[in-house]
């Protein structure tokens, strides 16, 4: 398998695949972050997570169109505004969904799964009706195009680097929010003991609603970032949902570090294998590996031993 390549070529291949893997890692991590907050903190499985992400992508697309048509002079920075708008749009939708649906189902996690699946079908159809079935792609500002050559055989795309940087920034922001802010403390208090948290004066209903909205908002930002490296269609969200759930479960649900490690492992495994096998076999083997490990160690990679 390796005989056809020289050592130098092999090295470049690994670096390039590694870079592709890092982009995939960013994608997984961005999607998984929102999901990990909602699933890890609230135990709710949001099957419509992909659609919240696509909402962010559409918001970004329309913002870019707006800038292109009306204020082209500021086009190079439209993305930053788009990201904020995407966060607000997906977060607001998330808040509404929590109020209308999720809060009635906290004691029935399996039913939440079905209801959010229904929501995802509805959102997909709405996107198709309003935005068309065709995939749309945003135009990148000039500074994001092109690539940086590292050696004569290895070069990296700027938009990919940008998405990685963005992922890093969002991850740090989430970590700070969850582990350093007083709001994060409230969320974790509610997770550990809902009744007690309520008794000491935390408004648990509000914490639930904002947690859900935050998770959805992050999904919107993820969608926004996606437009930098791919196109958006009504059903694009569904493509990643299984991978993302596996990332979250594999990482051990409630642990941010676990989510990062698992997103990294899965994305690197998949992109490295993709070079030697067909894309579908790489995916099958990766997913099988993850499912296999989860069968042996269902609690995921990172957990604590507690009294059951």
């Amino acid at each position, binding site marked *: 398998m390796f005989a056809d390549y020289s050592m130098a070529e092999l090295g470049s291949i690994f670096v390039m695949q590694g870079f592709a893997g890092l982009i995939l890692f960013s994608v997984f991590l961005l999607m998984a972050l929102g999901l990990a907050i909602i699933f890890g903190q609230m135990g709710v499985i949001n099957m419509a997570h992909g659609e919240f992400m696509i909402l962010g992508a559409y918001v970004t697309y329309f913002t870019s169109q707006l800038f292109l048509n009306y204020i082209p002079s500021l086009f190079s920075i439209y993305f930053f505004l788009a990201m904020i708008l995407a966060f607000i749009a997906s977060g607001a939708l998330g808040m509404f969904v929590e109020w209308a649906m999720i809060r009635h189902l906290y004691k029935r996690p399996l039913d939440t799964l079905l*209801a959010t699946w229904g929501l995802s079908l509805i959102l997909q*159809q709405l996107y198709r009706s309003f935005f068309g079935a065709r995939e749309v792609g945003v135009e990148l500002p000039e500074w994001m195009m092109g690539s940086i050559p590292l050696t004569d055989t290895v070069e990296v795309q700027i938009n990919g680097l940008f998405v990685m940087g963005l992922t890093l920034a969002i991850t740090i922001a989430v970590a700070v929010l969850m582990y350093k802010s007083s709001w994060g403390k409230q969320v974790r208090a509610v997770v550990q003991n809902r009744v007690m948290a309520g008794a000491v004066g935390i408004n648990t209903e509000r914490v639930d609603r904002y947690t859900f909205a935050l998770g959805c908002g992050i999904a919107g930002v993820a969608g926004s970032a996606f437009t930098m490296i791919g196109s958006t269609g009504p059903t694009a969200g569904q493509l990643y949902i299984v991978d993302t759930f596996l990332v979250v479960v594999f990482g051990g649900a409630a642990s941010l570090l676990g989510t990062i490690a698992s997103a990294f492992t899965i994305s690197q495994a998949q992109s490295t294998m993709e070079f030697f096998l067909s894309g579908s076999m790489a995916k099958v083997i990766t997913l099988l590996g993850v*499912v296999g490990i989860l069968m042996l160690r269902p609690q995921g990679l990172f957990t604590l031993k507690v009294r059951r």
Partner: protein
Amino acid sequence: MILSRKELLGLTILATLILVILPLSLDIFRLNLVGKYLTYAFVALGLVLCWGYGGILSLGQGIFFGLGGYCMAMFLKLEASSVENTKIQSTPGIPDFMDWNQITALPWFWEPFRSLPLTLILVILVPVALAFILGFAMFTRRVGGTYFAIITQAVAAILTILIVGQQGYTGGINGITDLRTLLGWDIRTDNAKLILYFVNGLLLIGCLLLAFFVKHSKFGRILVAMRDKEDRVRFSGYNVSNFKIFVFCLAAAISGIGGAMFALQVGFMSPSFVGIVPSIEMVIYTAVGGRLSILGAVYGTLLVNWAKTSFSETFPELWLLGLGGLFIAVVLAFPNGLAGIYGSYIEPAIKRFLRKKSDLMPSGTLPQGSPAE
């Protein structure tokens, strides 16, 4: 006694509908369509047992439907690919899609499907074996609930990707098509379709009876108890994971039969009945019928599919909205589905009606309420 009087009446009405009323009132095209829907009812029935009674939600029942279907389709395909029929291929005697993919010999795992008895065994055995592996690994480690749902969903995704990716061995995205005869008997004729419809109907009724038997056995009561207080059951001396594995395997076996009947009646099998989307759609059949209602599974399946067919013929956009709405409504407003609506609105009305009648006729016998137990 495996049926209460009420259930016997319900089963008789359903059997009459499937075996008498529908065949008399529909043309063969529509009847074949109903036959196809009824193969999904096998899956929905399996879900009643493992989700409704056992509390184990599998989002991958399409896996077992698909495996059963593929087993049957592989047998039929081999029969359709006799050397005689395929002499224009570069390798005669193997399925056409293999020839297109430059495969020159039948892969080993196709060999068992030369024999019909072996195929019929494998239709059940293959789904059960996979269900056993999944169930054993997960349930003995106390994995359940949403985790289990996600894992089954991932397995459904894996299987679909595998089938689509390995075109030469599986027929890829198109599936296994152009199935013709079963031991020389042409399954494409109207006459064959009618006979297969009845075979399917009888098998379904057989599976319904089996489900009633399980429900009324102590096993059924333990399932309910387990869903409620798993630890208590464990500390009453039951190995809870064995019970879960069994009911999951049973659901898989029933789904596999449905899949095989699908391949026979529809004449092909493809990965579009295996993956995430069809699997979760099958859950909604059960939910609409009422997750605790064995007969409801059949009605739910028929109703949702009838709605799907009639909506997507006229307003394809509305269908997805409707289906999405159905998922939400059945969870938020009608968690017991049609059976719940029947139990709380229609049945009392019938009882009132009958009581009034018997008041007029003093010698009339009152229908007994639900019998003791």
